[in-house]
């Protein structure tokens, strides 16, 4: 199941700094007395896939909303390819940042094709008057938009569902359609908010392939996700957000071995407890393989992220780690 070949090894090295697609500096978001995001800096360079992880309530989605103009950050600026972005979400999209939503927000009662066509809104300019007159320019633009939308539907594998209502699609395809709709605005940076939440292992793999294909087409991607295996297999860089602040940023290797990240997800060990007992326990558990796998699964379901880090390790060290563990529990629903 797990193919260790597509890890960080064959991802292209981060390109030279300075030509950042996205540059968020000092972004702070306060809601009254609550500081949801505190002084976060983040850059995304062209062709990069950057992951943003953090426990529930860490402020990931709030940060996303600040980037896309849905929220006006209390402090700090966001710039796209060197231009500071205005705080209006349609202008942000026009500038070249498209996003998906954590809880799918398709236009439920429009067809699949129409959803993607709405995504083309900023890249077409036919106004009401030209719609009423229906000149040749209008027809050409409509045809071009439709061709482009169909291309995207084929790209995401939804072409044969073009006339279905978005609400009637299965869950996984709704996620794909949201990505197709976002891509329709021809973005330079795609923001994905938990693209694999609630997906099966097969669908998650397909989503990873899709994101990699999007990168191949030259679009940088910033992705929020709870599925650690997904993140660490996919991203060039990962930033960890804890309680509104950026804790660590670096390659997946650095991040998944960082003590502070583990502490943020699991808490620190008891004071005075040397941890020897725990380590011994873990070793003992690993020896009894079948039981260990099962226990690991249960723990993971309870404890969230660290499980995935273990799994990745296990996958790279021992091939025998079988992947019939419970599918990733949709724990990150209420962020």
């Amino acid at each position, binding site marked *: 199941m797990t193919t260790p070949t597509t890890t960080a090894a064959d991802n292209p090295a981060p390109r030279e700094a300075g030509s950042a697609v996205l540059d968020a500096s000092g972004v702070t978001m306060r809601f009254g007395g609550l500081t949801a995001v505190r002084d976060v800096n983040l850059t995304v360079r062209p062709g990069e896939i950057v992951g943003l992880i953090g426990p529930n309530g860490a402020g990931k989605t709030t940060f996303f909303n600040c980037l*896309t103009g*849905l929220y006006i950050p209390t402090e700090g600026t966001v710039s796209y390819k060197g231009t500071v972005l205005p705080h*209006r*979400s*349609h202008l942000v*999209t*026009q500038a070249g940042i*498209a*996003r998906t*939503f954590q809880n799918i*927000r*398709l*236009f*439920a*009662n*429009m*067809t699949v094709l*129409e959803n993607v*066509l*709405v*995504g*083309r*809104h*900023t890249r*077409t300019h*036919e*106004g*009401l008057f030209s*719609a*009423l007159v*229906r000149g040749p320019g*209008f027809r050409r*633009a*409509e045809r071009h*938009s439709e061709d482009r939308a169909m291309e995207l539907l084929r790209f995401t594998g939804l072409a*044969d*569902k073009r*006339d*279905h*209502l978005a*609400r*009637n699609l*299965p869950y996984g395809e709704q996620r794909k359609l949201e990505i197709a*709709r*976002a891509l329709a*605005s021809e973005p330079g940076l795609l923001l994905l908010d938990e693209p694999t939440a609630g997906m099966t292992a097969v669908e998650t793999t397909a989503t990873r392939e899709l994101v990699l294909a999007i990168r191949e087409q030259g679009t940088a991607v910033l992705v929020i996700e709870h599925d650690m295996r997904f993140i660490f297999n996919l991203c060039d860089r990962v930033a960890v957000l804890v309680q509104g602040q950026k804790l660590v940023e670096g390659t997946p290797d650095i991040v998944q071995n960082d003590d502070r990240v583990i502490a943020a997800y699991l808490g620190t060990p008891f004071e005075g407890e040397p941890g020897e007992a725990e380590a011994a326990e873990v070793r003992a558990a690993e020896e009894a393989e079948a039981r260990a796998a099962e226990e690991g699964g249960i723990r993971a379901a309870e404890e969230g992220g660290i499980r995935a880090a273990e799994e990745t390790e296990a996958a790279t060290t021992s091939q025998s780690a079988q992947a019939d563990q419970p599918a990733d529990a949709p724990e990150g629903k209420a962020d």
Partner: protein
Amino acid sequence: MTTHHTDTSAHTAPATPAHHSPTVRGPLPLGADPHTSRRNGRVLVGAGALLAFVSTMLPWTWTAEFPGDLTIALYPAGLQLLTLVAAVLTAALLLASAGVRGLRWLTPGGKHSALLLMALASLAVTWYTAGAIAVELGGLVNLEPGMWIGAAGTLLAVIGALALPADLAPETGDDAREPAPWARLTHALKAPSPGRPAPLPDWAEILVICASCALGLYVFAYGIEADGGPPFIGFLMLSAFAFPALHRTGLPRRLTALTAKHRGVTLAATFAAALLFPITQSNEAYTNIAVSVLIFATVALGLNMVVGLAGILDLGYVAFLGVGAYTAALVSGAETSSLGIHVPFWAAVLIGAAVALVFGLVIGFPSLRLHGDYLAIVTLGFGEIFRISVQNLDGDSGPNITNGPNGIPNIPDLELFGFNLGEPHTLLGFELGRFANYYLLMLLFTAIVVTIFRRSDNSRIGRAWIAIREDETAARAMGVNAFRLKLMAFALGATLAGMAGTVLAHVEFSVNPESYKFVHTAPPNSAFLLIAVILGGMGTVSGPLIGAALLYLIPAKLQFMADYQLLLFGIALVLLMRFRPEGLIADRRKQLEFHETGQLDVPDATAQTTPGLPGIGKTEA
């Protein structure tokens, strides 16, 4: 009727596996095994339809005092005609469901469900007539034998239809328990959707569309001409059962597929039918109603753009109609006009539309920052502000612009190209009166609004409107400037209403603040406009037109129950929301929304049949 029971439906409708199950029995079986029950049922329906047909040739009552004169033998009139139509249709559906060659095209979808509803239609009309005669003339003694034969015949037909097996196999599959009678009845009324039609040559399809338009024109003209009271109620009852019956047969869905294929032809044919309407009318009173219906329908269509496409709940829409009407009244040379100028009609239309546009922008700019209920309340407020301002601009409490509660009377008739629209003209041998002239003028405006609606709906702007209606946040995240587009929809809607208002002022001779209330017992008012949109079907072109026609005709025809009108509309709306939430005419999107087509279950099969389903495959074929 027939003893030959091979299932012919399998050839015409491959998508309906219903008839194969021999265990399906009707809600009221006549006979031990399904085959006997079916045979007996068919015999009864046939006999009943024949009796009903014969009865319409006999007198139903002895005096011509009852509206429509039902006293003459071999001359069906008034309500008898309705029973006659119902009986003939019942017989036709019976023959079609029995698989008689040449009539099978009648029932591509449901067979027995349509038959049952049609039998119910004839029962409703006939028994209502009997009741109405007995009540109006005082006693059952006033019924002639013909009436009794008709009543018995229609009852027989219904009993027979109830014995026929349901169109669909029982949902529970091989459940040993018999479902409750009520459940069996509702099940018997369900019909499968029609399969893919055999391809017709283009000319035949166009002919079918034209024939349908002619039929529509005839039904509308009949309804508008029917006397208020029993004949009109009978017409309503027949329609209330016959249209669902027609829907069960699957013919309307076939027709929808055809009209989707030949859009231009459909529009032209509909327009031609509407154009021919005044020629069919000899009485000015009916064309008067027709022009009012047309104005009301046009304004409802404008509101549909605001409510149905952009999702802005505007409860003060009638104010824009008022703006247009008042503007036209002020600049068209009425004696009491405070401006005292008389501009040509085209200028009045432009000025009216422009003033309404300005009002739309002025009202929309602040209020469209609100959402949902708040926006609805604010628009309601602005609507009332318009009416009260107009009432107060009378020289006492403000400058004299609108003449206050007296309004502006005596608006002169229009003169276009040397024709005075106030005088009758003879066109191709047909005499067109004042209202017929205005009807034709208004038809032009309706056509403009229909074109604007259709073209903006199916464009980048229209898609953005619908996206805003669906999810404004997501729409903005997709790059849609929501505020600007909502303002555009609001202002465009206002402009169209203002344009219609300019004609309204001339048709009605006068303008008066009382006509532009939020709610009133007669159209047009904001509440009725909204009801017309919801009743007809949001986001469609034909929906508001039909909804508005019904909403205008019913109060106009049923004067005697004016006191209960609003109550009845309320009940009708509740029932509609329960049983057909998408409105009478379903938007192709809404159709998918409220009645799941099983896309989730069988995606592959649906993908294949998509072009066959009406309205979905809009760009195909």
